[in-house]
């Protein structure tokens, strides 16, 4: 097979991305103006959308680093998709700036007398410093990995991939620490009296699932618009990717269930306060959607290799999981501020879909500037000849 760069052409080269971004920006700012009477609702749904975009970028950063770390070859053909998702971290950082401005609406611990003995950690200056630190680390690693990978397209030097593999352990360690604390700061601290040591695992597994599901959906989309990419990314890659997501889905289910189980069993007031609105209170009807939509339906569908090896079916499962992941974050975040329930209206999709449109718009604009496959990666040939029946 002839190895050459693949570029997006025509409408998808840059117009599509810019168009998506503008539509998204209009949608989010329109929602902000329309929601002037209920700012708290707007900011909560904004936080959900922010966390969702963040997990997409962070999960992709993890995937790229672990791909180099394990010297994997199978994913090289679609790794550029994940690379372009992880490089959106600075954009997600921009999404975070309004949250700092709206902190009193979102985080109750900013109110005087609320955080009490947790004040040493939960105070605004330290919170902002930590956020800057997390984004600095993530931006540093994603920019470094992206630039080296782009450089390899130009020079074809195999040593660059080895260099990235060598730095991956440091990246993974820092990633684990920063994501843990970011999850505590931006989601767990919404119910500042509550705590859970399983929470970082839930954030981590949710990030990887969302990022890989989005990569699969985008892979299907790129196959549609690029005939060359269709030849390269085949059902073997879908099969392998589905297996990886399947494993992380089990990890997610384990994290979510054990976190609930331990709290339910001990039945201590400072722990159950998190679950009462979510499982028996106003939000309990969301639980079956998560349990079936995220776990049981994908679990049984993707159990079969015929589904994993069917591109349309696999993409639909990935889309389902992406949608339910969004609901999962909504269910994790919003009941902390609205324990008595909230009327979900037009505001929520216009902020959520709007921010996703901005995120994907930036993704497509960046993707159009480079080859959509890292075509001089030393392991590309191995990735193209992937065969799941050989082990």
């Amino acid at each position, binding site marked *: 097979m002839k190895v050459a760069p693949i570029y997006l052409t025509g409408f998808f080269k840059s117009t599509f991305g810019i168009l998506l971004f503008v539509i998204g920006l209009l949608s989010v700012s329109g929602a902000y103006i329309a929601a002037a009477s209920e700012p708290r609702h707007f900011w909560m749904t904004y936080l959900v959308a922010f966390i969702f975009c963040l997990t997409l970028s962070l999960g992709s950063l993890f995937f790229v680093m672990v791909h180099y770390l394990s010297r994997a070859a199978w994913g090289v053909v679609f790794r550029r998709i994940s690379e372009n998702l992880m490089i959106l971290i600075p954009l997600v950082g921009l999404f975070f700036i309004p949250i700092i401005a709206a902190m009193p609406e979102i985080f109750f611990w900013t109110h005087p007398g609320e955080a009490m003995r947790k004040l040493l950690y939960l105070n605004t200056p330290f919170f902002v410093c930590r956020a800057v630190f997390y984004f600095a680390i993530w931006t540093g690693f994603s920019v470094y990995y992206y630039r080296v990978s782009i450089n390899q397209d130009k020079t074809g030097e195999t040593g660059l991939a080895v260099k990235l593999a060598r730095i991956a352990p440091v990246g993974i360690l820092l990633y684990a620490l920063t994501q843990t604390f970011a999850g505590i700061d931006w989601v767990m601290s919404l119910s500042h009296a509550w705590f859970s040591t399983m929470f970082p695992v839930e954030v981590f597994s949710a990030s990887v699932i969302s990022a890989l599901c989005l990569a699969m959906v985008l892979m299907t989309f790129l196959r549609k618009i690029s005939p060359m990419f269709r030849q390269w990314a085949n059902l073997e890659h879908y099969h392998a990717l589905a297996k990886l997501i399947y494993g992380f889905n089990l990890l997610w289910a384990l994290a979510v*269930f054990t976190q*609930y*189980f331990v709290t*339910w*069993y001990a*039945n201590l007031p400072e722990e159950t306060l998190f679950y009462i609105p979510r499982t028996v209170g106003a939000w309990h009807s969301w639980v079956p959607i998560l349990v079936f939509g995220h776990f049981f339906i994908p679990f049984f569908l993707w*159990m*079969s*290799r015929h589904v994993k090896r069917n591109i349309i079916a696999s993409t639909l499962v990935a889309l389902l999981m992406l949608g339910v992941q969004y609901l999962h974050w909504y269910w994790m975040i919003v009941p902390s501020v609205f324990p008595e329930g909230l009327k979900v209206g037009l505001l929520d999709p216009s902020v959520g879909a709007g921010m996703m449109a901005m995120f994907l718009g930036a993704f497509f604009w960046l993707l159009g500037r480079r080859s959509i496959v890292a075509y001089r990666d030393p392991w590309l040939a191995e990735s193209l000849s992937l*065969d799941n*029946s*050989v082990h």
Partner: protein
Amino acid sequence: MNATIFGILAQFDSPAQLVKAAKAVREAGYVKVDAYSPYPVHGLDKALGIGDSRLGWIVLIVSLAGAAGAFWLQVWTTSIDYPFTIGGKPYFSWEIFIPVTIILMIIAATFAIFLGMLALNRLPMYYHPVFSHSQFHKATSDGFFLSVTSDDARYDAAVLKSLLEQNGGQNVEELEK
């Protein structure tokens, strides 16, 4: 078809030859074809036209039955037959039954995989007609073998012998049961 004949077995020098011969024999219309090699050979299962294993379905059914049995055992013992208050929880608290249910499902699946694999491969088997081939001991080191058994509708020893030899087969021997 002779009731005392097992089939015909040919030896090949390399995995590539084995795959090529398997394809040729399948293309000639034979279906009861099997291969023996010291290690898994890339592409051989496709060349032999081996379909999906039934093991997955067996494991699915057995593990679901294991999960249901484990769940029911706990429900019946602690909330129906002898209702027991533990930690002030309701008699029927599904949460508490989940860990044991999952573990027993995994155990059931493991047994189904192991025993099902043995059963589908008809193992343990102490004797097999291919052992009587003069060179078959090489199947554990450097010999690659292809067999066509006599229950194939088109079985004809002379035709098969020349077909196998054309494709690089050596020591082509017809074996008795």
